């Protein structure tokens, strides 16, 4: 008898305990979520505040900026800053945007053209010198850029490429080599060898297989790397500051700093200029975000 009663009565005793536990657990879970959201909101505010401040300033009039009270929202939102940047000859925003687009695109194309084949070679072949080559690619990263810059500056001077887009295009394309090669090698590694072997059996040569079969498969990866290199070229400051002297040839990051020198206390137009320069970088990064983050993480933490 006793054995029959116990299993019946056990749930009856435990049920109230269990529901009390679940209420407590429910509350704890709720409290945990509240704390997590508060902390996450704090992180988001810290990350985004200066950027929101930049955007806010770009819509603010000079008078309200100089008022004794700091406003978190522009009292009289205005597009005047944007109009003044677009029309100010000192800003030269059209010309420097064009310069930036030219330099960043050509350096990206050059970089991708030479690193795609290299990444493929590292992924598919065993050959003498592979380790030395791979090691050099990683060591390049650790050379101080100021030291490289001095040697580069003398060399570009000898080649008559100082104060010339070509100088910037070549340095950017070369500077991006290590990351691109490693990154693309990873993409090629993820494509099964069988696919190109099949293509080669079907009568493609090795290069034919690379071009017709592998490249279409690797294209999303190649585009991701290309977007990253373009944004790097778009954002680069030190080389451009050193190599380009003529204002006519200047690219955006240096141009905006020069413009700030002209403006001094007029932060509205400078911030409007900043917003204009930041937007393309953010859009491109957002498009390729997933690939860029996973690529960088696997590249750096290996």
């Amino acid at each position, binding site marked *: 008898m006793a054995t029959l009663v116990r299993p019946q009565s056990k749930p009856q005793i435990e049920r109230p305990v269990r529901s009390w536990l679940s209420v407590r657990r429910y509350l704890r879970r709720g409290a945990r979520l509240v704390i997590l*959201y508060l*902390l*996450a909101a704090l*992180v988001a505010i810290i*990350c*985004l505040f*200066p950027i929101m*401040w930049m955007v806010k300033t770009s819509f603010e009039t000079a008078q309200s900026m100089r008022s004794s009270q*700091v406003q978190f929202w522009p009292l009289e939102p205005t597009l005047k800053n944007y109009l003044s940047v677009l029309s100010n000859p000192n800003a030269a925003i059209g010309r420097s945007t064009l310069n930036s687009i030219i330099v960043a695109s050509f350096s990206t194309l050059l970089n991708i053209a030479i690193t795609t*084949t*290299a990444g*493929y*070679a590292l992924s*598919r*072949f065993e*050959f003498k010198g*592979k380790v030395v080559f*791979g*090691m*050099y690619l*990683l*060591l*390049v990263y*650790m*050379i*101080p*850029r*100021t*030291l*490289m*810059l*001095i*040697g*580069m*500056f*003398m*060399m570009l001077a000898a080649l008559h490429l100082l104060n010339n887009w070509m100088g910037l295009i070549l340095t950017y394309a*070369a500077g991006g*080599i290590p990351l691109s090669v490693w990154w693309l090698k990873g993409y090629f590694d993820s494509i099964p060898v069988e696919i190109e072997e099949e293509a080669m059996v079907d009568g493609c040569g090795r290069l034919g297989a690379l071009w017709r079969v592998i490249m279409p498969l690797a294209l999303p990866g190649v585009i991701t790397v290309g977007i990253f290199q373009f*944004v790097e070229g*778009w*954002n680069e*400051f030190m080389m451009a500051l050193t190599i380009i002297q003529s204002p006519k040839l200047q690219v955006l990051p240096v141009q905006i*700093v*020069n413009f700030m*020198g002209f403006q001094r*206390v007029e*932060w509205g137009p*400078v911030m409007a200029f*900043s917003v204009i*320069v*930041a937007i393309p*970088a*953010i859009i491109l990064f957002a498009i390729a*975000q997933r690939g860029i*983050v996973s690529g*960088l*993480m696997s590249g*750096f*933490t290996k």
Partner: protein
Amino acid sequence: MRVALNYNRLNKRALPYLLLIPVIVFLLMFSLYPFLSGIGYSFTSIGWIADKAKWVGLANYRLITTGNVGIARFFKLGFVQSIEWTVLVVTGQLIAGMAVALLLNEKFPGRFLFRTAILVPIAMPTVILALTWQWMYDPFYGLINFYLVKAGILQHPIIWVGQPNSSIWPLIVVAIWRGFPFMSLMLLSGLQSIPQELYEAAKVDGASMLDRFRHITLPQMRTTITITIILHILWWWNHFDIIMIVGTGGTQFGYGSATLPLVAWFEAFRWNHLARGAAISVISMLLLGGLIIWNARRELKAVNEM
């Protein structure tokens, strides 16, 4: 048939080299040569591009490291500030980055939105973020002065940056802010590779949150943390943009907030002493030499496994 086979074999052996030639040529011309010639120039008297390079041995190095006037003074200042800058920036980024990584590793609805929030500053050009911070530090209308005065922390607005005797502290704050989102992404990718079972087992054993962090998270993350720290030390020791833009306010330069790369750049490209700039860069590189060798050994291992 036989000819075709031979052709194929030759092709197979030569092909990897053919595919690598463009990259190798580029690296030789635009990275190895500038690096080696940069070291070479540090032993010459070269000032500007038109000068003939004359061998002077260690004269530049002696000039930089002896005495306490001119460039020797700036070198000592830059050396001290490089260490201060790197230690504080990387430590600050590590603490903030670890906290954010742990937070984003928790599961809660809408987590991806907050991950996007830390990605936004990563995507932005450093130059523009530096300008925005310079505006926030503005002595007259800047937000930081306004609130510090209002809160009674400051009696009157102060000039934070861009003066010859400006401190490097305001720049360190900017650098920590600029770098911690990326640091937290790196740490997060390490956190996500820790097997979940370890935590569950510890929970069953009744380990507290702090215990779990100390006895599971930290040991499991050791490699990731070490690599992240080393890479960030290398990057931020050589950092240029923030110090240049926030610290100079355009063209005037405050040595009060200069690190070695900045001292080298100014010596080479503003005062037209390319050789001395190169010598400062070489010393700066040697100071990091231990780290570089350590990292190279680790990476050599990665290459061997390739």
